[in-house]
């Protein structure tokens, strides 16, 4: 009888109700708004499971087993990357390799936010961001890349993993709302109407096969800490491009991705316990995550405007905003904006090229941060 009553007694804690609200809000965003539903829905339900008083799902339950077996050892984000790699076509980037530099430029938000978090953490009374490792884990939200954020946060700030993951995936789903006003503020209508010729260049299958192998070796030698992330992404891509492992490629794209996404989502949700989640640091992380996305976008757009000063054939500066890793959402947003200004303007190929470049750049950023931050 006591066991039956203790659940009801546990409901007297306001944090339980607050976290039920958070969990239901995530489920609502997934179901009603279709914001990253594949992740937010399992996260929302995981949050509910973890916050039911005396829940058997946590405290040694199956969600704890999944957390130790998939998050603490970084297995889930790595497996997700194999699926992502199998889904990505690097063709548009290989046709127009200049787009790589927009991927680099649009990582600016990571470092701006990292410094901001570091400074905020120095303010007397602010707890939760005691040093560079925590600041770096918050800054990496600007990678606009869930698995990289989880990977870095697990290593540098496991206590902040839940809010960092929620912020990363929430803002990725909000890219169509976040990016357009920033782009409009930083560009003129004439700039947004710039047409870009589609690259006519054909890319051989041999190049597509060599590319993931070469990138893995080069990135791995320069930043060994990035091998797990870049290696799994490029392994997935090699399965796709080799042309001889179609079954494996399809499995990585579908079954593997879906299975790991379910487990990743519900496990991250289970880390959202009221005691850990409901504190001022969470609010700071949510706010700084938005700043990271804003400065990523600004960094990419301003970089495009800068190089336009030296080019005869101008680049549509909106392409710079696609350098954030939120793939393929950002490319779609920019193509839509281009068509709103001029219905005959098709910059989707360049946008996708910059977008996949952002995917590579965000992983390199994660690897470099892991290597350089002590």
């Amino acid at each position, binding site marked *: 009888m006591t066991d039956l009553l203790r659940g009801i007694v546990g409901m007297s804690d306001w944090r339980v109700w607050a976290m039920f609200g958070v969990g239901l809000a995530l489920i609502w965003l997934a179901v009603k708004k279709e914001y990253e539903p594949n992740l937010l829905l399992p996260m929302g339900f995981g949050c509910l499971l973890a916050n039911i008083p005396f829940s058997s799902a946590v405290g040694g339950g199956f969600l704890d087993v999944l957390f130790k077996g998939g998050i603490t050892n970084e297995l889930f984000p790595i497996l997700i990357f194999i699926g992502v790699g199998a889904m990505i076509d690097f063709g548009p980037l*290989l046709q127009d390799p200049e787009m790589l530099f927009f991927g680099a430029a649009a990582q600016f938000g990571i470092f701006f936010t990292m410094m901001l978090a570091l400074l905020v953490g120095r303010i007397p009374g602010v707890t939760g961001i005691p040093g*560079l490792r925590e600041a770096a884990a918050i800054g990496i939200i600007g990678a606009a890349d869930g698995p990289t954020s989880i990977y870095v946060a697990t290593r540098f700030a496991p206590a902040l993993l839940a809010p960092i993951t929620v912020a990363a995936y929430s803002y990725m789903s909000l890219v169509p709302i976040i990016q357009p006003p920033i782009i409009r503020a930083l560009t003129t209508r004439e700039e947004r109407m710039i047409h870009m010729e589609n690259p006519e260049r054909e*890319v*051989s299958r041999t190049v597509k096969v*060599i*590319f993931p192998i070469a*990138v893995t070796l080069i990135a791995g030698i*320069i930043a060994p800490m990035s091998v797990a992330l870049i290696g799994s992404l490029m392994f997935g891509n090699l399965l796709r491009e080799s042309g001889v492992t179609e079954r494996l490629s399809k499995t990585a794209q579908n079954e593997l991705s879906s299975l790991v996404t379910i487990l990743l989502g519900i496990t991250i949700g289970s880390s959202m316990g009221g005691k850990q989640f409901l504190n001022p640091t969470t609010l700071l992380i949510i706010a700084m995550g938005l700043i990271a996305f804003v400065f990523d976008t600004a960094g990419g757009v301003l970089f495009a405007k800068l190089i336009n000063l030296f080019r005869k054939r101008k680049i549509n500066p909106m392409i710079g905003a696609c350098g954030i890793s939120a793939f393929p959402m950002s490319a779609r947003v920019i193509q839509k904006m281009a068509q709103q200004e001029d219905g005959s303007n098709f910059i989707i190929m360049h946008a996708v090229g910059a977008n996949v*470049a952002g995917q590579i750049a965000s992983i390199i950023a994660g690897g470099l941060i892991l290597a350089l931050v002590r």
Partner: protein
Amino acid sequence: MDTVVVEGLRVSGLSYVLIFAVLGIFYGLIKFLLRMLPPRDDSA
């Protein structure tokens, strides 16, 4: 200035520059591959 903030500035600046450097290497790699292995290479 706080030594942690100085270290943060060093890591941020260095990382941002290194991202450009690494992607610059990839740029050179792609240009090289496209030149050395044009599409007709597929028949080989």
